[in-house]
């Protein structure tokens, strides 16, 4: 594309003349073409002066409440530097996948050993596989036991940065909201006692968020969701 073609395309994008598929394609191209992205951002910034002329209008009183309800389960795209978990899959580290494979093996090995001592007496009533929000790969297995305890088995190693903790949550029902099951500095094979809750149901949400130390200040998830999944009963 020459400069005029790019200006033309950026112009159509900003005016809203591309259909959804073409707009998506344009955004993908922008990720690789800083000049094109710059043209669109500049023109959009200039044209937004027209939007700023709109006089504010009223809206339904519960609009914010509706948004808040949606936030509980909305997955977030994380800023790259937060955790090693995020960007790892996108670019192979020097030396290829070997270091990652090794860390997964270590995590699985540790889980297996701990499991033989910790969980022999009980079978989980529910199992949830929590997926990494960055690339939807399985990152943690949660086993839920009848005594309200949960066992975490990490499949990837990840840790909270200094001054923050990983906090494990479940959502027994939307009315109660998310309930904390415990906090830990880094993903490891661990059993958390958990508060007394009704028996989990199939499809119940489990997630781990990043929170300020020593845990969410509000008692609800405030930080980005790192991994998330839904419970399913094991076949007996």
């Amino acid at each position, binding site marked *: 594309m020459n400069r*005029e073609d790019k*200006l*033309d395309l*950026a*112009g*159509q994008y*900003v*005016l*809203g*003349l591309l*259909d*959804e598929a073409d*707009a998506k394609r344009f955004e993908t191209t922008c990720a690789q073409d800083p000049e094109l*992205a*710059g*043209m669109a*951002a*500049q*023109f*959009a*910034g*200039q*044209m*937004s*002066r*027209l*939007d*700023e*002329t*709109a*006089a*504010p*209008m*009223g*809206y*339904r009183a519960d*609009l*914010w409440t*509706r*948004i*808040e309800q*949606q*936030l509980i389960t*909305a*997955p*977030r*795209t*994380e*800023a*790259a530097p937060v955790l090693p978990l995020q960007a790892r899959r996108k670019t192979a580290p020097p030396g290829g996948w070997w270091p990652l494979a090794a860390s997964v093996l270590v995590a699985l090995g540790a889980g297996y050993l701990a499991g033989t001592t910790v969980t022999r007496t009980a079978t989980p009533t529910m199992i949830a596989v929590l997926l990494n929000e960055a690339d939807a790969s399985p990152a943690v297995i949660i086993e839920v036991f009848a005594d309200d305890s949960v066992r975490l088995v990490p499949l990837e190693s990840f840790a909270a940065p200094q001054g923050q903790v990983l906090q494990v949550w479940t959502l027994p029902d939307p009315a109660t909201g998310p309930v904390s099951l415990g906090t830990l500095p880094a993903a490891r094979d661990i059993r958390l006692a958990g508060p007394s809750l009704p028996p989990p149901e199939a499809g119940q949400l489990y997630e781990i*968020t*990043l929170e300020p130390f020593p845990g969410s200040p509000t008692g609800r998830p*405030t*930080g*980005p969701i790192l991994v998330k999944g839904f419970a399913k009963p094991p076949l007996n």
Partner: protein
Amino acid sequence: MPEAHETRSLLERIAKGDRSALALLFDHEAGRLVAIARRIVRRQDLAEEVVQDAFVAVWQRAAQFDAARGNAMAWLITIVRHRALNLLRDGGRMDYHDGETLAALGDRSLDALNAFDALAEGDALKTCLGQLDEFKRRAILLCYVTGLSHGEVAATLDAPLGTVKAWIRRGTLSLQECLS
């Protein structure tokens, strides 16, 4: 209207997972964003739905906002505009009865011209838009402000589709050159 740096610092807090910052942003901007969405989707309920989706998207994607590359308010407006345009293009719910069509298009014309008139004198955008032929300017305003498609602009301006496409293309290029 809060200062630009305030919107930016709210976005930075939202990116770190601060929900109170999102609530503040909502208090500051929801009314204007509803108005912007309504210029495009026309119906109050749909405009509110757009803003609801947009704030969830802001929560999810605030980390992608790059302060070095764009201003925060424009980023927010872009999200709202895209949601509104997608809703419009999905089509199904936007049907007008025949009798309403012309009046609706007339309203849109007025919205588009009012937005232009409301730009501050001396604003580069106003100057550059003002330098375009009237038809090119109106076509561009109808697309941008009210989200009309090429075909709808052609119907509104009572001009052939090919001519309207050429107006918009030439007009937009001139506008970008003038603004850069």
